[in-house]
């Protein structure tokens, strides 16, 4: 199924892009997607347990993803 991956700040620099559309196995969890993404070319730097937001909400590793979800990988935050 198709998913949009978003990268911000340091992760955008490392990915060389702010957005990537990928095809992932149907019904993967967040944790499974992270393993899948880390195996893609140029994305092996992604931490094994990154902070993830799905459709703009912080997501737990066991959340099951759906078609067209927006999955953002977030470096540790530093607002203020």
């Amino acid at each position, binding site marked *: 199924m198709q998913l949009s991956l978003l990268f911000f700040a340091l992760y955008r620099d490392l990915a060389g892009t702010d957005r990537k559309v990928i095809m992932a196995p149907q019904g993967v969890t967040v944790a499974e997607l992270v393993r899948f993404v880390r195996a893609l070319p140029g994305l092996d730097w992604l931490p094994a347990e990154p902070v993830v937001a799905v459709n703009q909400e912080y*997501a737990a590793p066991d959340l099951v993803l759906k078609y067209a979800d927006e999955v953002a990988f977030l470096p540790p*935050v530093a*607002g203020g």
Partner: protein
Amino acid sequence: MRSRITHEPIDTAAVLEMVWAQENGAVLLFLGVVRDHNAGRAVTGIHYDAYSDMAERVLTEIVAEAAARMGTERIAAVHRIGELDIGETSVAIAVASPHRAEAFDGARYIIEEIKQRLPIWKEEHYLDGDKGWLDGRVPMAASGSDRMVDDDAR
């Protein structure tokens, strides 16, 4: 309650204006400002990056939580993103309440939660031409924002 993520310079007087009300004896304005040094290095400016749509949502949640804690809706929080120079305001928080204790508590709650979970990042520019993303905090993502509120309230 007002909350906003903006690329424009923050009009701090306007943020204060949003919360004034006759029944309130305490009005507090907190400003986060870009300083000229960090960790022993001379800083010339900061680039703030954000997941803007999510940051709008999270800031709205934080302000609503503060309102529930304080028992007042007289709260405004604005975070600026983009390129900021030394001395410019990156975040402005205004709260008003009948008495000072709730106002200080509410403003403190908002800035601490911003630092803990607002999806915004700082890239410092240094005098020597170098630049770098600052280390941040890991939001407790396991059960979403509700979990974070419970933890803070213990």
